[in-house]
């Protein structure tokens, strides 16, 4: 009998990257405008936080989120967001259209994992601009933290590896959320709330979780940490990077372990939802 052939996933992904780049280059002006508009949004955002830090030294007493710590946090948010926007956002957005018009048919015919195919086939290269901006902000802020006279930050290779690992975890959690939400459009027929939902979610995820840990913020904190674990996404890598003193504290360790559990859990759940949803696919008329 035939030996099972596996589609070369990495090679296919490279072709996705290549084809998307070719496409973006075809519409040069669109590419440039997208880069500029997303960069200006980032700059405005940064300006806003600079203003806030001209009124206060840190976010809340004893949270450890001073100006540059917070900028590490902010660049972490940007890293994760641009990653998701580059790889998954255009596809999740298109998924809803594929279902409504019945073009998912073609994806289902291909001898390759359907979730892989629809999650990655388009890549938005213009997100690179923001990614580089985030890189500059990150390096500058970490350098500031390392150069400050009192309690300077010492950066180990282990910390960098850990940071990258949790960045990846964050991306997986957000991806899982996004694809689960997109998959619901199979049942709903149409789901246009994707962008809105994304905005709400990232709005909660882009602040240090200490903000929520008092008063009536606690239920929110609980909801967005343990039920829909978006608070973990940025908080864990950013805290490990910017506040290594707290690295050994039980709460940080607990969060770090929980982040791994949340990542695996979200991914498994999203896979389940996606597969279930595909069973209900009806395919629009020809």
């Amino acid at each position, binding site marked *: 009998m*035939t030996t099972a*052939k596996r*589609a070369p996933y990495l090679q296919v992904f490279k072709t996705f990257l290549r084809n998307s780049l*070719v496409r973006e280059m075809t519409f040069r002006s669109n590419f440039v405008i997208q880069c500029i508009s997303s960069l200006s949004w980032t700059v405005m955002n940064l300006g806003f936080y600079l203003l806030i830090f001209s009124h206060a030294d840190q976010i809340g007493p004893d949270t450890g989120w001073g100006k540059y710590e917070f900028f590490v946090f902010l660049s972490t948010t940007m890293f994760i967001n641009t990653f998701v926007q580059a790889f998954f956002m255009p596809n999740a957005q298109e998924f809803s259209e594929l279902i409504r018009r019945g073009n998912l048919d073609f994806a*289902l*015919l291909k*001898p390759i994992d359907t979730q892989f195919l629809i999650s990655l086939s388009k890549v938005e290269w213009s997100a690179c601009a923001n990614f580089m901006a985030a890189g500059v902000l990150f390096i500058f802020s970490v350098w500031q933290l390392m150069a400050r006279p009192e309690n300077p930050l010492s950066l180990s290779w282990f910390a960098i590896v850990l940071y990258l690992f949790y960045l990846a975890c964050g991306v997986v959690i957000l991806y899982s959320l996004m694809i689960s939400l997109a998959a619901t459009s199979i049942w709903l027929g149409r789901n246009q709330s994707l962008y809105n939902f994304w905005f709400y979610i990232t709005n909660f995820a882009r602040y240090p979780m200490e903000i929520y840990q008092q008063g009536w913020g606690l239920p929110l904190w609980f909801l967005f940490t343990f039920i829909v674990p978006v608070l973990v996404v940025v908080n864990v890598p950013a805290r490990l990077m910017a506040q290594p003193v707290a690295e050994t504290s039980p709460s940080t360790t607990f969060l770090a372990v929980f982040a791994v559990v949340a990542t695996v859990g979200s991914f498994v759940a999203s896979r389940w939802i996606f597969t279930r949803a595909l*069973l209900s696919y009806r395919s629009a008329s020809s």
Partner: protein
Amino acid sequence: MRIMADSYARRSRSSDSYFRRNKDFQTSLNGAGLYQNPVISSNVVHVLVSLLGILSLCAGQLPTYNRLLMSLIEIKNLAKTYRVYQKKEGLGASLRGLFHREYREVQAVRGINLRVEQGEFVAFLGPNGAGKTTTLKLLSGVINPTEGSATVMGHIPWKRENPYRRRFALVMGQKNQLWWDLPAQESFRLHQQIYCVEPARFQRTLDELSELLDVGNLMKQPVRELSLGERMKMELIAALLHSPEVLFLDEPTIGLDVVAQHKIQQFLKFYQEKRKITILLTSHYMKDVAALCKRVVVINQGQIQYDGSLTGIVDQFSGHKIVTLQFGKDDSISGLERFGEVLEIQPPKAKIRIERTRVAKNLATILSDHSIEDVVVEDPPLEQVIAEVFAQVGGHEDQDNPDEHSRVMD
């Protein structure tokens, strides 16, 4: 003795397709190329497979035997029902619909039985919404059936197993799968990777297909800049790059001009004859069907109403002949109503529709009463007969049992 020979032939024919699953064998067949005569290789296969069949029979391997007897495509009582939200007119009703919804069951396919052998080119005919496309979608595993079973090359389509998905293709005239903003070439390369086609074989197949369809110079042009006909050709190439053994075509010539239609027909005919692949086609153009398919399956309201040859439709469903008479100069054209329905009178010619059984008797009477210079007796146009079949069946559809109408051709 005759029965034995027949079953033997059938067994070896369908086991041919079973045997093709072997990877090495498949590669060598495809390696034989498009222009090489496949008869030689298929003869060798027949001998080999017959031997295998006999051996397995001797060994008492019943499952293998059953598999060898299977048709390439087997459909049993296949049914698909959709639940559709019944929207009512008006704002008030729409608001009520938010809380209380009424649903209607739409039976797109109701109990279809069909067997297709390897190498057949079968057309599905039927009006819009008859269930043709739904059947093709079920067979490609895009949607799940409500009831019934189907196997294609031994696979259950809706399990969506990769070994199955590598062996068939679906082309839809109204949908496109190529990247809109990129040259078709880029989409082809992606297909090569997804279907694991070796680079050398990919290039060979691509060259052959683009030469046959005459699109070699369009490969580098973005798909959005191609005409509808050119795009359809590209879609066909994309679907055939992995050399599928079964091809489902859903209205591949829809919206195309006569030249493009003809070109695609020619291509399909040539390709099917060379490669001996199995094709199921749906089309509204009778010319497609007449040019390509020996076997026609008429589907209406989700059921098979007819299964046989195209000309057989006229024999089975039309009880009339069209008789054209040319009268002599002095003859008066009158009193024709008693022979049949008068379709048109343009002196000196008249056209009458006469019941098939009465053609000879009526003609004799007419010939003796009038001075006739010329007579033409012909079948009514095929498209008209088919239109009548659709309309006729639609009328008393509900009391019908699908099995009464389907005539499975063996």
